[in-house]
């Protein structure tokens, strides 16, 4: 297994449980990929890449007994968007409280929210069974593919006529147009639209972002669909638990072991070569890296079919997100949030209109970071006591948009600092005295994320989640079932179906495909 990201570890666990001898090779001195907890500042633990959990499949957690290996996921309550005029919109778990909160802005929207939630649930129910299944190849006549197509067809037709049309429309709509069909107030739409652009090089008005919204809605915690939570101890707790589960099944992990080449002979994978020169033979090689790194960096493209290589080159992996991880000397004040409201423990945002989100995207298109970026802020230390000294706090700030390559030249330390200032200024607008609380700030651009984590262009999903890169198109049409053109070489990262987020489904599905092939 090349790469100890969460998908690689999930796949490795399933393979080890099935009796295979598994070795995971990780180039960093620590495992986890983008699901890590890092101690980058005295006494503080940062979830310095991914920061919240919802999509991790319950079936995976249970089968691998991750709680038994130390994982605990704690849901957080609600969230809030802070408005420039000092107002706010909060989301609460309690349905009556939520209704009254939305009614402060619009009575009609308060009720339309029920219809919205119901429709999102309907879409979730439709897509959930598809997540842990390999997509069929619609151009193939193989019985497996035909059978799966038929299964999908039946699943779709079970929706009933009206909902079939709704589903077709939903998958092609933009988030802004979708929200316009329910809500009238800008703040409600802006709050909900945030999830449609996370990690995505599209704006809320781009068709296809309604799906991205669903992607961030379809997780669940303990049966509550759409709930998000913290992994106790940071996101690294997930990958640490996976590593423990792997060890319990007899698997091995080696850090500081960067893989330089995937070795093949006669169209068959034979093992890997490390940067040190050491060669490790293996019957199967599974790559947790994104498709570009796997096929264009770790292999000689000449070994692959030219059309495959062309498609891999065309697979869009665009960095659009930045991250700040901030150690704070105390809890920041947000005057817009009423005292005692639990929503401060949830996700906090500062973009209060669709136009603001869209303009932030326009900046990215021009090769600049957003002047008024979308921020997704969380302070897990309010709930998780393990991540900072008592009374002090760690704040995670996810920033959309930030380009991988700036229009005016490469990233420099000055530019990074300037980007960081843009973000902090934005926060300080809503939190007086915020700057004074900052003990340390780690500022990460897509360029930094790529260098450190190994994600091409720092794209958190290992590839855009647009319609042309989903399902049977992900990552390459004809190769959407975890197999590569090389026998014995498989893909298991987020570049494969069903895509990114800390889900584990790509890893699990890849393992299923591998084990299926072995049986045959």
């Amino acid at each position, binding site marked *: 297994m090349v790469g100890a990201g969460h998908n690689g570890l999930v796949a490795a666990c399933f393979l080890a449980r099935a009796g295979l001898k598994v070795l995971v090779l990780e180039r960093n001195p620590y495992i986890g990929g983008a699901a890590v907890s890092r101690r980058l500042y005295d006494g503080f633990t940062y979830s310095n890449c991914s920061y919240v959990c919802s999509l991790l499949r319950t079936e995976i957690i249970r089968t691998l007994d991750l709680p038994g290996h130390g994982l605990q996921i704690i849901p957080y309550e609600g969230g809030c968007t802070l408005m420039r005029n000092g107002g706010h919109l909060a989301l609460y778990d309690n349905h009556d409280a939520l209704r009254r909160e939305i009614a402060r802005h619009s009575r009609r929207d308060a009720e339309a929210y029920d219809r919205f939630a119901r429709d999102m649930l309907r879409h979730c129910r439709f897509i959930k069974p598809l997540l842990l299944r390999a997509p069929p190849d*619609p151009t193939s006549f193989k019985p497996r593919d035909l059978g799966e197509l038929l299964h999908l067809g039946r699943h779709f037709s079970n929706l009933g006529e009206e909902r079939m049309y709704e589903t077709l429309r939903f998958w092609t709509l933009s988030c802004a147009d979708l929200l316009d069909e329910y809500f009238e107030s800008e703040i409600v739409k802006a709050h909900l639209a945030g999830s449609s652009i996370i990690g995505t090089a599209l704006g809320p008005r781009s068709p*296809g972002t309604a799906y991205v919204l669903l992607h961030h809605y379809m997780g669940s915690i303990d049966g509550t669909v759409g709930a998000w939570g913290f992994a106790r101890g940071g996101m690294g707790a997930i990958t640490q638990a996976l590593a423990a589960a792997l060890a319990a099944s007899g698997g091995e992990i080696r850090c500081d072991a960067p893989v330089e080449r995937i070795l093949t002979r006669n169209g068959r994978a034979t093992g890997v070569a490390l940067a040190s020169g050491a060669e490790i033979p293996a019957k199967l090689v599974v790559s947790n890296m994104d498709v570009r790194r796997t096929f264009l960096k770790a292999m000689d493209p000449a070994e692959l079919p030219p059309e495959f290589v062309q498609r891999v080159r065309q697979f869009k992996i665009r960095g659009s997100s930045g991250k700040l991880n901030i150690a704070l000397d105390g809890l920041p004040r947000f005057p817009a949030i009423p005292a005692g409201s639990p929503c401060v423990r949830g996700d906090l945002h500062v973009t209060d209109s669709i136009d603001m989100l869209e303009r932030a995207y326009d900046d990215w298109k021009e090769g600049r970071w957003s002047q008024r970026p979308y921020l997704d802020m969380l302070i897990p230390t309010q709930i998780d006591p393990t991540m900072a000294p008592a009374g002090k706090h760690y704040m995670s700030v996810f920033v959309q948009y930030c380009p991988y390559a700036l229009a005016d030249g490469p990233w420099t330390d000055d530019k990074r600092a300037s980007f960081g200032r843009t973000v902090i200024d934005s926060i300080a607008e809503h939190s007086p005295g915020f700057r004074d609380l900052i003990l340390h700030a780690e500022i990460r651009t897509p360029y930094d994320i790529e260098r450190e984590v190994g994600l091409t262009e720092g794209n958190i999903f290992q590839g855009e989640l647009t319609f042309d890169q989903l399902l049977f198109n992900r990552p390459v049409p*004809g190769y959407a079932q975890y197999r590569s053109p090389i026998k014995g070489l498989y893909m298991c990262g987020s570049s494969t179906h069903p895509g990114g987020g800390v889900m584990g489904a790509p890893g699990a599905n890849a393992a299923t495909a591998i084990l299926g092939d072995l049986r045959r």
Partner: protein
Amino acid sequence: MSASRYDCIVVGAGHNGLTCAAYLARAGRRVLVLEAAERPGGAAATREFAPGYRVSSCAHLLHLMPAWLLEELGLARHGLRMAAERMPTIALSPTGALRIPLDPDSAAQNLGDTDAHALHEYEARMRRLARALRPLLEAVPPRLGSRAWRDRLTLLGLAAKLRLLGRADLRELLRIAGMCVQDLLDEHFESPLLKGALAFDAVLGTNLGPRSPGSVFTLLYRLAAAGGAPASLAQPVGGLGALTEALARAANGAGAELRLGAPVARVIVSEDSAAGVVLESGERLEADCVVSSADPTTTFLRLLGAEHLDAGFVRRVTHLRTEGMTAKLHLALGRMPQFTALAGAVPTGRLVLAPSPGAVERAFNDAKYGKFSAAPLLEIIVPTAVDPGLAPAGQHVLSAVVQYAPYRVAGGWEGQREQFLDTILQTLEAHAPGLRESVRAAELLTPEDIEAEFRISGGNWHHAELALDQFFMVRPVPGAAQYRAPLKGLFLCGA
């Protein structure tokens, strides 16, 4: 008043209404076409916009009408003649021009070898894909989940046609169908001018930008509707009005009646069926069925009325995105415009001002926020170059489709039309020095004006935005996607 009975009443004598009427009449039905304006044609008409100068008032090129239709209705017999056919597209830049399809003689003019070769392959493949999609355009969309054999057979037939594409093409189609045209073009080409022109084709008349997912789809739609051939552009003698006049004659010839200046106020409903119409004058006209070529919002909410429809259906109609993003410019010119990039050649083709995909995207950006584009994109023809009868001797007309001009502009169009006109003229001047000074009269139709003049709610000539989520089985809305309204006896035949 007299209630003489017709089999069908067609509301609106635009090209769709007239075509529908012609076919109904040929099938033996007693048809009456009612047009509110004093002249048929709707948005495919010719009128005088300045004394002595005539122009196609909205659509100005014949592009998507299938040849078999023109033949079946015998439009040539009814007077339709072309002033130009198979017009090339010429993309203009400050430095030069690029002709598409490529001039077979001059190799790689303004285009590198790789791009020229790539264009050839790209066009071939897009043609194949578009051809496979064509049946979608000529079929009554099937109903999903329907037990009716007709629907099931249609679906199967469409799937089979797509399969016939072969694996590679089908894979490609499935891959690019949801993509944005910018990404597709970046995969194939280098030249910004070429990409700009191709991107422009994808977004012309839509509410999308080159980076909007779904813009490959709109491009494929355009190609499919054009019969898979990229350059079937034609210009009728006398403008598009000649087309609709020929259609009117064909309809008349088949026995249909046409009444002009007869705006319909509402549809008569009797026993939950459409039973005719009432004109604004109060006159009642009865018929077994009513076919409306008006846009869905007008048809369902104004002519029929929400009280005859289910609330969920009405909700879908109110959510239909119908706003236009395109303006129309008419210039009366004292002399032939001299486009620098054409180096003296007479502009007989379709000129496109879209210097790069980035320029198209930036123009789109403006429109997203309720502003007209600061650097608009233009599709220009000088119809008098091949059809001198449209203007006095030696004078000329310039007709341009302008992208992007949002229906709703911050501050309203009243105060901004002049500014926008000025911006457009500046753009033209940059490519054709001296043009401004030769302008004798100018008319700019914003989407608001288009709405008012052609009675299209929202001012979008497609009636409803052309987008994947408003297409085929869900166009205009689920429940009315098979040309039938939910009400018996009421049909739709408009864009």
